[in-house]
């Protein structure tokens, strides 16, 4: 609690907002609670703020009650019946494998782990004296019994059930869509004795037409790694179309003559529970075949998120690690048709689609397409800079983003032909780059296109003309007392609103820029490109700061009563891209809230409000907080 004592140590000073709420909730420590109580007894100011907080709570609870009554939710009775059935099913399947988990494979595995842990694998165990062997076996027996009991307690899923659940979960997510396409982004790491290669891999699988497209998104020699991996999957009965799936894992597992398996419970980053299935092939394994595989499944949704394959190879083993970085199920209608477009016209004509092609394509080697042009993050920054120079990053719907197919797409709708020409000429330096696709339409063109597709007209993003009617605006009293004529007041109100909107456009541009790249991408960005990105950020922060402080100065004239004099504080300089992103997000929140307050104060509304937020101290604090933040972003290094 931020209560401060006076020098003489008497009654503590005023309570902060969060202290008041904590006090009401009885969440302060006993001592703090007592201090706060004493202070509240003596201080009218804090007591009335306490009452405000209390009534806010009541208002919120009332609205919550009115809008989402428990009675409005589906009734409990049927839901409980459903739950009872679901639980019974769940329980039955859980019991089925509790017994199974005591199988022989587990015991043998436990034994082998035990001997390993004693580093007996280096010694010739069988050559040891009998007494030692007997002692070891006895000891092992005890450990195994303990292990079996322990593992029974920790896991309740058998390997086959784990795989079954994972593929059921996947099937359920596919059923919800008419033409499901599974889109997985994977990180593939290949580790051999002395080298390690990591590549980004994207897999699109069209379940209905059972076809799949795969792209290498990052990493040199990525195509080679992915090609090798596909061969490994092929050789081990796995499904190269869906490299990280329970189904694929199951195919290999079922083909094994003899195996050892164990399941352990682990925690993932972010606190998710996960089950790790480890399957070890028993017996001799040829080169190129999997000796051991591991599948990590997230318990919450039974989604496989990681797979490790240890491959036997000449001169040491190779390990492939596949980690899911993102995954979604989308409808085929929403997938860019170019993804499934045949890359080579000649091969497509020689392989006509037949009803039987399902099997064929499944077993055929996947086509690994490495599109020659891949746009880099640096190129993306350059395009953003060009758009900024043309002033096309404010309000207009022009976006530049790298897509999964590796291309950088610049798309947008602008008002006029002249504007279109202007933007196109600004983009001239990159337009011939094979990795860049530019698609700028005028509103008229976009409308015509939408009409052809029978859709609604796109929203135009031009600045709205602000019309302030002579009717009552919320801040009418203040305006009247300051301005001689209504006309002057009206103009002032209109100016405030459009100024606030101008400021907001810089905030939107700021946020778009800061969200353009992921944290990893920003870290990996070349220093020159990062400097460019930062300078774009800084220029919008500067523009916002100008608008915002101009706005505040003008508002102060009218609301001198509540406006607090705010000395320009200088915050700590920002020197980390991640921090820039955070600061921008916070500034966006602050700025949007301020914009709403201004809109409410200066636009006419049918409901007459007696008190407006613009007169509160909180609003003025928020205004200056936004300015401080903007100036910090403006000087970010």
């Amino acid at each position, binding site marked *: 609690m931020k209560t401060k004592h006076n020098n003489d140590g008497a009654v503590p000073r005023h309570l902060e*907002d*969060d*202290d*008041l*709420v*904590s006090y009401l*909730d*009885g*969440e302060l420590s006993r001592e703090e609670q007592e201090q706060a109580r004493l202070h509240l007894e003596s201080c009218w100011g804090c007591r009335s703020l306490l009452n*405000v*907080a209390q*009534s*806010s*709570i009541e208002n*919120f*609870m009332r*609205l*919550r009650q*009115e*809008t*989402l009554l*428990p009675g409005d*939710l*589906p009734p*409990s009775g049927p*839901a*409980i019946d*459903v*739950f009872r059935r*679901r*639980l019974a099913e*769940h*329980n039955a399947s859980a019991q089925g494998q509790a017994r199974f988990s005591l199988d022989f494979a587990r015991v043998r595995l436990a034994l082998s782990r035990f001997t390993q842990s004693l580093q007996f694998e280096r010694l010739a165990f069988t050559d040891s004296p009998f007494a030692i062997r007997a002692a070891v076996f006895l000891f092992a027996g005890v450990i195994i019994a303990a292990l079996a009991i322990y593992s029974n*307690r920790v896991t*309740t899923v058998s390997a086959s059930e784990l795989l079954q659940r994972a593929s059921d979960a996947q099937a359920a997510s596919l059923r919800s869509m008419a033409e499901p396409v599974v889109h997985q982004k994977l990180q593939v790491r290949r580790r051999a004795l002395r080298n390690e290669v990591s590549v980004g891999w994207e897999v699109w699988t069209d379940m209905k037409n059972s076809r799949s497209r795969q792209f290498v998104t990052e990493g040199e020699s990525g195509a080679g790694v992915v090609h090798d991996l596909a061969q490994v999957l092929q050789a081990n009965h796995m499904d190269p179309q869906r490299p990280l799936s329970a189904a694929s894992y199951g195919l290999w597992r079922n083909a094994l003559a003899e195996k050892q398996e164990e399941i352990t419970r682990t925690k993932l980053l972010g*606190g*998710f529970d996960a089950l790790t299935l480890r399957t070890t092939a028993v017996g001799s394994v040829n080169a190129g075949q999997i000796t051991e595989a591991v599948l990590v499944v997230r*318990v*919450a*949704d039974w989604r496989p998120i990681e797979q490790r394959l240890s491959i036997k190879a000449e001169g040491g083993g190779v390990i492939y690690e596949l980690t899911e970085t993102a995954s*979604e199920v*989308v409808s085929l209608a*929403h997938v860019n048709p170019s993804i499934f477009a045949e890359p080579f016209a000649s091969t497509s004509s020689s392989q006509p689609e037949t009803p039987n092609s399902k099997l064929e394509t499944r077993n055929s080697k996947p086509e690994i397409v490495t599109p020659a042009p891949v746009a880099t993050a640096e190129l993306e920054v350059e395009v953003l800079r060009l758009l900024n120079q043309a002033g096309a990053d404010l*309000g207009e*719907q022009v*976006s530049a*983003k790298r897509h999964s197919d590796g291309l950088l797409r610049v798309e947008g709708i602008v008002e006029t032909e002249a504007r279109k020409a202007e933007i196109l000429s600004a983009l001239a330096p990159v337009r011939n780059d094979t990795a860049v696709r530019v698609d700028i339409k005028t509103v008229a063109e976009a409308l015509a296109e939408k009409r052809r597709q029978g859709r609604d007209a796109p*929203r135009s993003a031009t600045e709205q003309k602000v019309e302030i009617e002579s009717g009552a605006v*919320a801040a009418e009293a203040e305006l009247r007392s300051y301005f001689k004529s209504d006309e002057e007041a009206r103009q002032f109100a209109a100016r405030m609103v459009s100024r606030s909107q101008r400021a907001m456009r810089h905030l*939107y541009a700021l946020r*778009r820029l800061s969200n353009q790249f992921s944290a990893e991408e920003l870290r990996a960005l070349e220093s020159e490109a990062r400097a460019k990105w930062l300078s774009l950020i800084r220029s919008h922060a500067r523009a916002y700061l100008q608008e915002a402080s101009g706005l505040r100065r003008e508002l102060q004239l009218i609301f001198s009563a509540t406006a607090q004099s705010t000395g320009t504080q200088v915050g700590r300089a920002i020197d980390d891209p991640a921090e820039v992103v955070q600061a921008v997000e916070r500034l966006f*929140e602050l700025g949007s*809230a301020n914009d*709403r307050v201004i809109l409410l104060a200066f636009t006419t509304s049918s*409901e007459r*409000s007696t*008190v407006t*937020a613009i007169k*509160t101290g*909180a609003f003025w604090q928020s205004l200056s907080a936004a300015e401080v933040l903007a100036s910090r972003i403006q000087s970010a290094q």
Partner: protein
Amino acid sequence: MMQSSAFPLVNAFGIEIDDIRRGNRGVEEVVTDLYAKLRTSLLSYVYHLVGSTRDAEDLVQVAFLQLFDQLKQGNDIQNVRGWLYRVVHNLAIEQARRHDRRGSLLHKWFADSSASATELVEPAEEDLIRREQIEKALEVLNERERHSLMLRAEGLSYQEIAEILEISAKSVSVYLARALKKFESRHENKT
């Protein structure tokens, strides 16, 4: 084992768990009983996050199945209610994120309008209208503030909320104070 917190409800369902430990009642029975008792409040919280009663109902049931697994394995859950809120919260966030990604393309095109998000998910008409009211009043809140407020309204302690949102209890009080302030300024303007 009692948790040290000022909030009195923390271990409200410890008795049920004790029943299992003592062998008075089976896990299945206790979990069903807890489901009947806690379903409504969990449901209304999840509903705010996912916006569909059907999805909310399913997520809540999944959370109780997970609770069943935990108890069946003999794992001790100190605060059943807090645990359930944490699980449904994570499930709902995960689900919402999946929906978000599906709409990402449209979001980019109409970044400045909020209409596109609802076009893709398509909840029932009357759900939307009802939701709109509270949504309007809360739209000025950011995610943390909103989650803190909703969880507090369900009667959770700061410590419980802090664990669910993975922030400190002190931050919870700050978010709550801010949320109430923003809500109130909205509310005042409407009445």
